[in-house]
């Protein structure tokens, strides 16, 4: 069942720019999003990625009804978001990583109470959800702390609980792991996976962290300069972008550059060598082959950087 439908979406902003040699400022139209078309089915987990200023947040803001599209159509859960914003609000949850929807001066507990009143969630349902999220997100001990005193990771968990207390069908996350440490990121991903599994919540997240996508999303939509450049699996993106992972090998002795099928030695520094191999290939046979022919002291794998993958994608002429 299609839950989100976007057709020929376009949004421009008028900005005033000063031109050289002229004192007057001219109005210039900037296209933040153009010709965007995609569908998301119920229960999908979709990564929405792109460089800074690509139009990710603008898209999320149009999907939630905050911004009115300049042209094109959006249907979310069967309605036009900007025209039915308040009605749609009950069915969606939104987390903006850079800002909080909690009340700065109120303890977390009061923020959650206020949300129950705003959404008019059934009190029993609210209590059950709250108990579950407090447990899963490890928030129990923070309930009486004012939001301004929470750390970034704690606040993010609070925000995610806040966005889910009314049982939304869709959860939009705008950079949910930004600024979080590795452990918090891992826990958050685990939580989001279980949310999708147990409650069938549809997830759409923007992120800079390719590991978020790897851990969560079967599907990736890439946008750049406001327009869609890729829609498909993460493996397909790696293939299109020709992205590579790097195997860092620490050998017992200094030897000549490693020669092995399926990988390319990029760099040698004493006993340490860097081998690159296609990101969608498995590292296991490579490691096995290495171990059988060389004395390996240690190994680690570096994931491709999202910015690199996307840069690669753009530097190639669009396929097909």
């Amino acid at each position, binding site marked *: 069942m299609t839950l989100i439908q976007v057709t020929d979406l376009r949004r421009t902003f008028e900005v005033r720019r000063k031109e050289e040699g002229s004192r007057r400022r001219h109005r210039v139209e900037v296209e933040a999003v153009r010709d965007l078309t995609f569908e998301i089915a119920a229960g999908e987990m979709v990564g929405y990625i792109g460089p800074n200023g690509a139009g990710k947040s603008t898209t999320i803001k149009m999907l939630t009804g905050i*911004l009115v599209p300049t042209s094109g159509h959006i249907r979310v859960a069967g309605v036009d978001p900007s025209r039915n914003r308040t009605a749609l609000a009950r069915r969606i949850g939104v987390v903006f990583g850079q800002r909080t929807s909690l009340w700065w001066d109120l303890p977390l507990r009061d923020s959650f109470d206020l949300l129950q009143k*705003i959404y008019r969630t059934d009190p029993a349902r609210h209590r059950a959800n709250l108990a579950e999220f407090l447990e899963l997100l490890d928030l129990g001990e923070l309930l009486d702390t004012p939001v301004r005193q929470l750390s970034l990771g704690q606040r993010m968990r609070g925000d995610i609980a806040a966005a889910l207390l009314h049982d939304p069908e869709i959860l939009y996350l705008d950079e949910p792991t930004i600024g979080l440490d590795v452990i918090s990121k891992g826990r958050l991903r685990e939580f989001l996976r279980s949310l999708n599994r147990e409650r069938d919540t549809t997830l759409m997240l923007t992120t800079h962290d390719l590991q978020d996508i790897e851990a969560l999303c079967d599907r990736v939509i890439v946008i750049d300069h406001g327009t869609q450049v890729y829609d498909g699996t993460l493996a397909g993106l790696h293939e299109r972008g020709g992205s590579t992972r790097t195997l860092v090998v620490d050998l017992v002795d200094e030897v000549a550059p490693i020669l092995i099928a399926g990988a390319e030695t990029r760099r040698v520094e004493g006993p340490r060598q860097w081998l690159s191999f296609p990101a969608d290939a498995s590292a296991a046979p490579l490691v096995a082959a290495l171990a059988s022919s060389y004395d390996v002291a240690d190994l680690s794998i570096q994931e491709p950087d999202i910015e690199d993958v996307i840069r690669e994608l753009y530097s190639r002429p669009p396929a097909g």
Partner: protein
Amino acid sequence: MVDAAVAYYRIGSLWVRASMAYPASFWMMAVGSFLMTGLDFVGIWILFGNVDDLGGFSLTEIGFLYGATGLGIAFADLFVGRVERLGQMIRFGRLDTMMTKPVPLLVQVCADEFALRRFARVFQATIVFTWAATYVDWTLPRALVAVEMVVSGSLIFFSLFISLACIQFWTADSSEAANAFTYGGNTVTQFPLTVFPSEIVKALTFVVPIAFVNWYPALFILGREDPFGLPSALQLASPVAAAVMLAVSALVWRTGVRHYRSTGS
């Protein structure tokens, strides 16, 4: 409408409960606010120690005008005063998060950080109004007009607050300019309009109709002829002015929301 009021009440009462965690600060702010607004009238009182009347109106009549406009702005400020902070809410991204909640945006903006201390203005205006009202020669029609005056006056200021705050959808910080009309309008109508040239009175009637907040209905209640010779029908026209202002503010608000550009990120 009822839904909006209920939502306002729910959000507002939670803010009150939260603020009651600090009772000392609540009382200090309340008393401070009461004294600040009260000092205005003391100023007028002192003036009357030196003159017998102002623009042909006695001290008790001016008290009536003062109390009436005071009640109007006090009720409007109590319920929608927060709308002045719209620009700030836009800058900090608060408006974005409010827009994803299932309560009308205006209700959320106005009920945000609702504080009981804003009742201080209402108390102060009520005291002056009640005192001045004891000198009025009351009849039933006059009493009805008095009720209608306070309701219409509140709605006129209410509409002014909202319409002017909407400028902030386009220009981030214009709350000072808006204050010139709201609190400025309140100050102007604390005096009998006979102290102003007739052009200003016409502007306050037909352009920004704050003369309907107290001046015209008060002429009826005090049993005075219109000093500018304007039709006496104006004295009963406050509800019409309020309705027009409300319609304009609803339109401006809607247009503002649809033109909202959010902030980067």
